């Protein structure tokens, strides 16, 4: 498992709807905003790249120092973004695919308004379990 990893789901309107620090490293106080900054800036790259490929998994698209941003874009242009410091493309791909399934299940919930924050604790535990499994 990566020592630093920050997973985030960004809605079509660039609003973060889910975020989780899934790294094993001790959480630093200023890391949260730094991770947000990096992921936020990486959206610029995603915006360019998303339309150049038909694949959903865009691989590592941006980096900042030793942190790499991997992105998975769903058909609805929701972006699953992972900031990580390990190189494990296959694991990340499986992680994204499984989280995508979970996200679809969330979308199927008639009480969930697409684009709103995902507050389901079940989703949270599942995502963290997947992160432990694949990253």
């Amino acid at each position: 498992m990566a020592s630093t990893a920050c997973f985030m789901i960004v809605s079509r309107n660039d609003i973060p709807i889910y975020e989780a620090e899934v790294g094993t490293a001790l959480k630093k106080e200023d890391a949260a905003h730094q991770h947000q900054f990096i992921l936020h800036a990486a959206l610029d790259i995603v915006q360019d790249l998303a339309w150049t490929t038909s694949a959903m998994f865009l691989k590592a698209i941006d980096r900042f120092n030793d942190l790499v941003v991997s992105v998975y874009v769903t058909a609805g242009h929701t972006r699953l973004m992972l900031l990580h410091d390990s190189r494990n493309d296959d694991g990340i791909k499986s992680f994204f695919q499984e989280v995508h399934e979970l996200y679809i299940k969330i979308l199927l919930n008639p009480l969930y308004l697409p684009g709103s924050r995902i507050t389901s604790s079940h989703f949270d535990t599942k995502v963290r379990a997947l992160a432990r499994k694949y990253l």
Partner: protein
Amino acid sequence: MQGSKIFPTCFQTHLKSKLYSLLLHLKFCHHGFNFSTRSLHRQVSFSDHEAFDHPVACLLVVSSKDEDPINKFVDLFNTNQLPSLLNDGAMDPKILKHYLLVHDNQDGMSENTTKILAAMRSTFGSNDCRLLCINSSEDGLVEHQENPWVPHKTDASPSQHLGCFLNIDDLDEIKNVMQDLSSKHIIPHMEQKIRVLNQQVSATRKGFRNQIKNLWWRKGKDDTPDNSNGLMYTFSSIESQIRVLADYAFMLRDYELALSNYRLLSTDYKLDKAWKRYAGVQEMMGLTYFMMDQLRKDAESCMENAFNTYLKMGPPGQQNATRCGLWWVEMLKTRYQYKEAASVYFRISGEEPLHSAVMLEQASYCYLFSKPPMLRKYGFHLVLSGDLYKKCDQIKHAIRTYRGALSVFKGTTWSHIKDHVHFHIGKWYAFLGMFDVAIKHMLEVLACIHQSKMTQELFLRDFLQVVQKTGKMFEVLRLQLPVIDIPSLKVVFEDHRTYASPTAISVRESIWRSLEEDITPSWSTVKTNWLESQPRLLSKKYKESNVCVAGEAIKVDIGFKNPLQISISISNVSLICEHSAKSDEMVPDASSTTTAHLNDEEKRKPTTSGELSSDASSFTLSEVDISLEGGEKVVAQLTVTPRVEGMLKIIGVRWKLSGSIIGFYNFESDLVKKKVANGRRKTKQPMSDNLKFIVIKSLPKLEGFIQQLPKTVYTGDLRRLALELRNPSETSVRNIKMKISHPRFLNIGNEEVMDMGIPACLEKKAKFVQSDAHTRINKVSDTVFLYSEDTLIHGGTPFLWPIWLRAAVPGNISLYIIIYYEMEDISTVMRYRTLRMHYNVEVLPSLDVSFQISPCPSRLQEFLVWMDVVNRTHSESFQVHQLSSVGNEWKISLLQPIEAIFPSEFLMAGQALSFFFKLKNGRKSVTTEDNVSSPAPLEGTDVRLGHGSNEELFDISRSPLADFHHFERVHQRMSDQEHPHKVDFILISRPRRSDSDPGLNSSVNLFSHHACHFSIANASPIWWLMDGPRIMHHNFTASFCEIRLRMTIRNSSDAIASIRISTFDSIPGGSPLSDATSVPPGNQAGWHDISLLNDIKVTSEVLGTRVGKSQLAECASPFIWSGSSSTRVKLEPMSTIELPLQICVFSPGTYDLSNYNLHWNLLFSDDEGNRGAGIRESSGTCTGHPYNLTVLQSA
């Protein structure tokens, strides 16, 4: 004036001008950056590893005023004054020299100058010497449009009045000299040198043979230690020569030549591992490629190569790397590759914070210029650079970059980003002392729910510190701490509706209104007639807006929520209100003139109305201090009490956070629909009207409560309570009416009951006068009570009135009481008010009483009553006191003495008990009008169930019991049709008196259980009873026996019944009725086996004869009905008739005389028949009751 380097400067300015023109596009200030790049270039020039900056020519200038100009010229190029690079062999010291004599015309034209020039020409050669005359202006007042040195020397201060003696000719002359120098001397010199060098290089390096030799020669040098930094290559070495050749070619724009030589050189240097030189050559190759504008890839790869090589060298190569990177960036920018340029900038930024801050800022601008603009990257890099600026205490630069970033991050939902930017920018502004802006930014981060507790504390602490440093009270509209929960906003005011308790407020308005309906006058009736002296028609205005009374508080409930995990304290929470005197159109009276002077002082801006009640004479505000724990929500009740008439408007709420900053909230600005307690207003009304109140003159207001109302009672508990009404004002109120929502639970008592205890008022008195005439209340209907006219309440004296409470059914009961009263003073706008009281009572189950009634088989009009009593409580035990049947129709008595069936006297918790009673119709007169259900004349018969005979029985016809019984009857009514054959019971019990305090609650509690409408009617309306002898003695030897019987028939229906009695001597075999008689199938005849052991003692000989006769029974009936086999009678309603019957018995035995049928048919009159047909049967057939007759042979 030493090493001139005219051409290198030319080139540099060429590229730089591109840079400038690009950067000028930026609206951001870049002066600092340009300046720093230029000084960087200056600093890294003249290095030993490249020949680009090496001097080509030297211009030696001496003034004509000098004493010995010739020597001075020689002196100037003295070796010990030359730069070290020239001396230690890195540069070629034999460079082109040019001698210039400058003459100042202000000193006058002298021959001396020409002489010196002649001497110079003779000494240095005539070609290389010149004379320049300057300052030929006479007055020295030539104004130049601009400083002529501006393009070349920016650091000259503009205040110095430079060149004021230069006239236009002088400037031309200077230009001429310089042009002459470059075109006639320098360029030819360089061309010459290129030719020479090119020949040399071709001779030594070009050609296959030379290359082999060179390669072999370099291989041989591999063993020598790498000393690339040492002076391995002097100017005379072939590599330096090639470099000079290439550089000269580059300067003269022969890029092909330059490139081929650079290539040659780079392989050499690479083989020699002379990295710095290699990098320098690569850098130049990149530039050459760029200038040729071909092979972009090559240009970039060369630049990258050079950059990386410089970086590999570590700190000494840093500056060169930077320069190289900047060239590279400029190349990319020229090709509009901003994104790549930004990444190069990012690579340039190294360890040193200020340096990288500048580079990152540049990178961010590149992201801004890229197409499409990458704003998020722009913001991110600005923030990164701002952080670095802050690290080297460049606060202003940091703020500048953050403000740039803010334009991107404004309103972002990325919470951490927003918090970071706002918090830091706020902190830095505070550092600079700009507290206003600082606070504005800090306010943004206060409600940071997502942050950790520590961060929240940090934010709040820093914010409060900043606020304290300002030393001022800040007033902030929409302060985010705490969060105001607008949906919880609730305004409670009392117009004609007043509330006794807070629970009454929360009751829905519709409940109150439905209760109030029949006691309050409708609006139209308020107008009364047109003759009224003061036509106080309520203006439309009053109806539409809210009315409140001066001196009575308007309560506003506002929820404050602390979103943070840390606790915060807010103080001085109060409402912001605005009071204005009435305008003329609203009140037709002249009263407006008296209040007009208040108008000005009350018209204050909402924001300035922060001053509290001290000065605001027209209203009083309450203040509340709250401390909110993390995540806590507190509803604060704030009040405003208007003091004078006029218009009062609630504008908002204000509070002080942590004693240092004042927050405001304006209700009006919020468009959220608010739930307001009083639902009278229409939804279409705007919010502002909901918070606007018309204040009217103060009115009396009743306060009321019920004394000693218990929270929890057991079912059936009957107790007396007191309603206390109080009117604090001196003006009295009159015409008081009261309405109770649940008369089954709560009933009004008589005044004299007030002083009596429970048993006392219920005990049977021998002579009891119904004192209804004297009572001061009138019951208008079941639930409305009208106090007599002379009941006036005023001056704060309490007015007590008894109220009976009886817990009728278990459950949670909400009791609503409305008291209506009118003002004594009729000149007020409001004629009446209502007081609304609300109480919740929890009723627990106590005794379950059930009755079952079955007709007594042996007696006409008598019934057996089976009463089951179960104690459902967990701990209480009850003493069953008495059972009363209501009405004088029925007499009730115990079947067995009470001591026998109920020895313990107390019914313990969970215990069940059955009682049996005999019920007898005691009514003598048979009248039909008795079946009206009137509550008042209740007279009953009672059975004492208690052991102590000294206890008085309670009179169930007395007021509370009778009243409650009436409501129970109404409630328990099953069908709309009243049936006379119904009986009601009241069971009165008392809880067990505890031995410890016998005096206290002995007289308080009484339980009454009412059970109503028990039907005693049979399925058929016809009753009959056979009457006659049971045992006969007859001498059968003489004759057969004739026995007379009587049948009593009663028609209990309200219609005429036609009855036919048909007797038959043998029971018809196929008749379905035969089953009902329970005759054993073997005995088809009239008599049959009776188990003799059961009831009748029969002698043995009788048994013998009977058995003997039993064989006869098959052929002959043992008895026959004599007389007509069918009798038909007509029976009036509710009447009884007696019919004689006769049988003949031929032998002794026991006979069952049930072989007859009774056919009845009700003859309704037309309307009755239609009405009752569906409910009751109109005809039927009954088989006879068993009647056993024993006939014995007499002796």
